[in-house]
């Protein structure tokens, strides 16, 4: 029994750790080191409760632990960065290449407050529904909607509309 317990955990890590690492990287603010740290902590917690969570799909549980740990860590470190939406940066997005747009988008995504960032990652990277996102973050769907809306609005603020329209065609 112990052997199958260990084996199934190994298989899960082998199959899903890269995906979870990417989520960790995005929700923790783009630090590879922090992402690895978060992922290890989340997997350790998953390992502790593996007998219970492995019977169903363990990934949502792992994801939830990961995202909430990232938010808690950001709060502890006082990394909540309130961006002044009324004053977009003076430097517009470079005009000529979608790669630049994407790098700016990611850079601005990583500057969002952790909860807003987590909502955008869960909704638009993992394509979770509003209800699934709410369950992962332990909040209401209304909160998910408002956080997603604010997050997108902030990203939009940093983009020169004409450039954005040109790049996305």
């Amino acid at each position, binding site marked *: *029994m112990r052997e*199958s*317990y260990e084996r199934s*955990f*190994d298989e899960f*890590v*082998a199959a899903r*750790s*890269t995906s979870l*690492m*990417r989520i960790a*990287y*995005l929700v923790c603010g*783009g630090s*590879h080191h922090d*992402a*690895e740290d978060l*992922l*290890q*902590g989340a*997997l*350790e*917690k998953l*390992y*502790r*409760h593996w*007998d*219970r*969570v*492995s*019977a*169903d799909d363990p990934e949502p*549980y792992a994801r939830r632990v990961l995202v909430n740990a990232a938010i808690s860590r950001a709060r502890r470190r006082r990394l909540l960065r309130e961006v002044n939406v009324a004053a977009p940066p003076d430097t517009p997005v470079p005009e000529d290449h*979608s*790669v630049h*747009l*994407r*790098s700016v*988008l*990611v850079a601005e*995504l990583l500057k969002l407050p952790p909860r807003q960032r987590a909502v*955008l*990652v869960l909704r*638009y*990277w993992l394509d979770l*529904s509003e*209800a*699934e996102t*709410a*369950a992962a973050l*332990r909040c209401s769907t209304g909160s998910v909607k408002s956080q997603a809306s604010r997050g*997108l609005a902030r*990203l*939009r603020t940093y*983009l020169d*509309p004409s450039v*954005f*329209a040109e*790049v*996305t065609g």
Partner: protein
Amino acid sequence: MALELEDELRRAMRADTHGLRVGADLVDRVRTAHTRRTRRRRRTAAALLAAAVAVAAYPAYQAAAPEPPAHNVVSPPGDPGARAGTGKGVVLGEGGAIDAAYLPAGAVYEGSVTSLSDAWTSVEGTWTMPGGGRLTLSILRAPLAGPEDLKRLPPFDGVSSWERVPLPAGPALRKPDGTQMLWLVRPGVALHVAMTPASAGELLKIARSLTYYPTTSDDPSEKGARSGMGPGDALVDDFEVAHIPPGLQRGPLDGSPEAGGRVGVKAVEARWYSPQEDWSERGPRLTVYVMKVPRSWDEARLHAESAPGTGRPVRARVGGEDGVLSGEPGRTRILTWIPEPGVGIQVRARGYRSDAELLKVAASVRRP
């Protein structure tokens, strides 16, 4: 434009994380960290216990003063001595269940915590006393052959002096300041009572009132031999489950903050399973959650919070209450309801062709 921004954001995230990979030794690091953490917790528990004893010793002079009158406590008519006997508590663990026939008046149950380490496991229920002290009742499992082995349990190995006190279950060890009692109820299982600030008389009275019920899974000889029903098996938090499908036996109970996995509220989780099956196999299994929820929640809200994405929910009736039934027919079926404001129950049954067993179990959940 909103749609384009979202699509572009997806592409940006994909591009930015494309090259990320985890180290090949990740699993090993996880296991090593897990081992270290459990050892650290064990050491911390010992340190905290020592600190609690020290704190309890400080107000010892207060124990000699007359006890202040109890406020906000209504004495029942009749025997004045019965006033204090109004409390009742249950602590459940993998090693069994404790039923406390006596708790001091005004004690408020705070919850239970499961702790695991390499050498022992414990489930600890905590009550807050009206005066601000705490009471904990714990079930400890460790390689214990006799009473003397109790002194070697990690939380107590730094305590040099114990006195022996007779209890119906056998001799108990008591700290001279009356803050803790510890005794063996069967090989491998001990009960522990701690109270701060301590009142030696109260502690002894509580200890004498405790009844221990082993779970069937605690006794290998009983595995698979019966339907799994015993006094300890039937209790989940403050509720009992009067009907358990034949062939299932009690599995682990989890009162930790993570109990319920995806349940976002405080929960106690109990499982029953087929002894022929591994946990991860697809055999019959029953899970009962007792959840503390906001009083404003109804069954639909509880279902949405605790079982999202489990198929189209339909309405059901449970013991006169409205419930929500969801899940895939033939696989895991989930029934959620609110038996009283602030309390949610969820029963999950897996491996049954119909909902008959699930509904029978749900109808049998009640306060003892």
